[in-house]
């Protein structure tokens, strides 16, 4: 039963699946990393992903273009995040409360829209999803090639984005200002940085990423919208961001780790295991907590993360 577990073909398939499952996680955690650097937590990721998933499916269906769908998803995520952004930054209310309520609103609203537009049955309107794109040359490397270079275009884009974000955060004035806003908004404001603007824009970027993450679920995986398709991935992104110390590149690796655990969980069940299935379902979450415990000693969050900033206060 366990003989196939360490074979190249099993591991290749496992990690390839891990990459696939990590795509929404990567987008989500990239967005959240940026937003948290600026001091706003992405608790509403889950809801924004749902909006992105729904609208990307709707637009792709109506226009026949997957890319327009992705764009629509990004826009939907971004616009819906505006609500959260305004309330947490401008109105300075508690971010976790708004986030949670927004998520509840998103589920109800997307379900409502889904039924209104598609009735109770849209499962047979499946789209032709993004196909895997083999990168010439690289995809022929044994094992690694099949795992990493045989994925759909959203996967490649996500990694490029991660690199771009990393560079912006470390090397550009914009990135440094963003970090300053999260660390010491008072000093930043005093030195002329528009804290509110930065935070809102950072949060909208997060919403945009979350929207793409949702789009990757409908347009890159299942091909249709099913209710509550995000299934808790938004929350896992929050954990990934902490584990990766708000570093976009590490976030990609962590997302890959999570995706692989999910892939592993399934395959362990397929192989047959005396353990009750609940252990497998709980595995990603247990691993998160463990990782937080082990790697958690030197976690330094942006100092003012989650703290509403008051422009007027001295």
């Amino acid at each position, binding site marked *: 039963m366990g003989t*196939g577990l360490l074979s190249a*073909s*099993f591991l290749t*398939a496992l990690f390839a*699946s891990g990459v*696939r*499952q990590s795509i929404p996680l990567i987008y989500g955690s990239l967005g959240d990393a940026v937003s948290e650097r600026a001091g706003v937590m992405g608790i509403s990721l889950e809801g924004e992903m749902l909006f992105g998933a729904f609208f990307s499916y709707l637009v792709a269906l109506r226009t026949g273009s997957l890319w327009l769908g992705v764009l629509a998803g990004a826009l939907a995520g971004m616009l819906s995040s505006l609500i959260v952004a305004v309330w947490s930054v401008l109105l300075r209310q508690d971010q976790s409360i708004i986030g949670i309520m927004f998520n509840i609103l998103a589920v109800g609203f997307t*379900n409502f829209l*889904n*039924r209104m537009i598609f009735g*109770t*049955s*849209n*499962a*047979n309107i*499946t789209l032709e999803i993004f196909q895997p794109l083999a990168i010439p040359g690289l995809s022929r490397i044994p094992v690694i090639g099949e795992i990493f270079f045989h994925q759909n275009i959203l996967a490649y884009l996500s990694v490029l984005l991660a690199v771009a974000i990393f560079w912006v955060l470390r090397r550009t004035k914009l990135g440094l200002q963003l970090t300053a806003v999260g660390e010491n908004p008072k000093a930043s404001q005093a030195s002329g940085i528009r804290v509110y603007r930065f935070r809102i824009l950072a949060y909208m970027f997060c919403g945009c990423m979350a929207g793409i993450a949702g789009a990757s*679920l409908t347009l890159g*995986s*299942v*091909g*249709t919208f*099913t*209710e*509550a*398709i995000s*299934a808790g991935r938004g929350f896992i992104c929050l954990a990934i961001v902490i584990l990766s110390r708000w570093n976009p590149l590490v976030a990609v690796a962590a997302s890959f780790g999570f995706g692989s655990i*999910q*892939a592993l969980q*399934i*395959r362990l*069940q*397929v*192989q*047959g295991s005396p353990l*009750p*299935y*609940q252990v*497998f*379902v709980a595995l990603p979450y247990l691993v998160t907590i463990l990782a937080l415990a082990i790697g958690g000693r030197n976690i330094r969050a942006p100092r003012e993360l989650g703290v509403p900033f008051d422009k007027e206060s001295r």
Partner: protein
Amino acid sequence: MKRILAFILALAMSLSLLTACGDNANKEQDKTDLPKEDTANDRSTVSKIAVLLPGSITDESWNQTAYEGLQTIAAQGYETAYTENVGSNDMESVFRSYCEEGYDFVIGHGAQYGDACCRVAEDYPNVNFFITGNAPEDVPADELPANIMFADYRECEGAYVCGVVAALMTKSGKVGYVGGGNNTTQQSDKNAFIDGVASVSSEIEVKTVITGTFDDSALGKETAIAMMEDGVDVILQTCDHTGLGVLEACSEKGVYCLGYTSDQSALVADGLCLTSMLVDIPYMISSQIDLIKAGNYGGQTFPGLHDGVVSMSAFSDKVPADVAEKVNAVIEQIKCGEVVITPNYSEN
């Protein structure tokens, strides 16, 4: 701090006092609530029908078919209502609300509603109840309220037949089952599927995965892919939304699959959906109305293949004639009682 401790101690003491006298009151109250002997006339009219659904009506299987059944009934002129996503903390409240609003036939769509239904049924002896599932097994049959009908329908018979189909159609010798959760129906489906496969050949391996959710289609898809990588070439799914993902994967990779609760062949390309195990929930529900009108409604029934409540959809064109013949023979055996599939709720 001391004040708080004092407070808590006082609370605890009063709690224990109240507990002591309160509980005796409870016990006596329970005794007087035994089901009374009902006069058939009180319960033989039906005008308002309600259904409690565990999930949402867009799942293309379990919940949606109940919804469709309700629509059929509504078309016959009855007043109907339904509530979706009724979880374990809501069930008793929702049952009681419908009863209070004058509904005289209330359906709990799933065995998990059985326990709450028993309590509610005792308080509303003039309302008819129906549970699509087995009765709570730790309650002796004579203590079950008389106004509940438990339809311990043998969905597992359909799963058994699916096992036979899978075993006959597999070329790789590996077949798979994807389930959503752990209620009794799902468990009996899984075990019956395994038995059905074994009845054809003991060499065929059955891979099973319980995804833990009925709502994650992306996970369903990945699960199916994982199975296929292991060599599985026929998959049965019984998990609503998650199952849709499984079907999607099969469609994409050209792997055989089996549908659940409704004919899902339209969802999959090229006749890959060999057959679907159908539960005629609309019929199960609407046929109750006639039974209610006849009076003396209640008890347990065991619908299955034999009365058409459970059936198999037409085979797809991928199923060769000799396989179809063998499967049909098995179906006949089950129908006439030659082969008996008893629901097996154990975990392996």
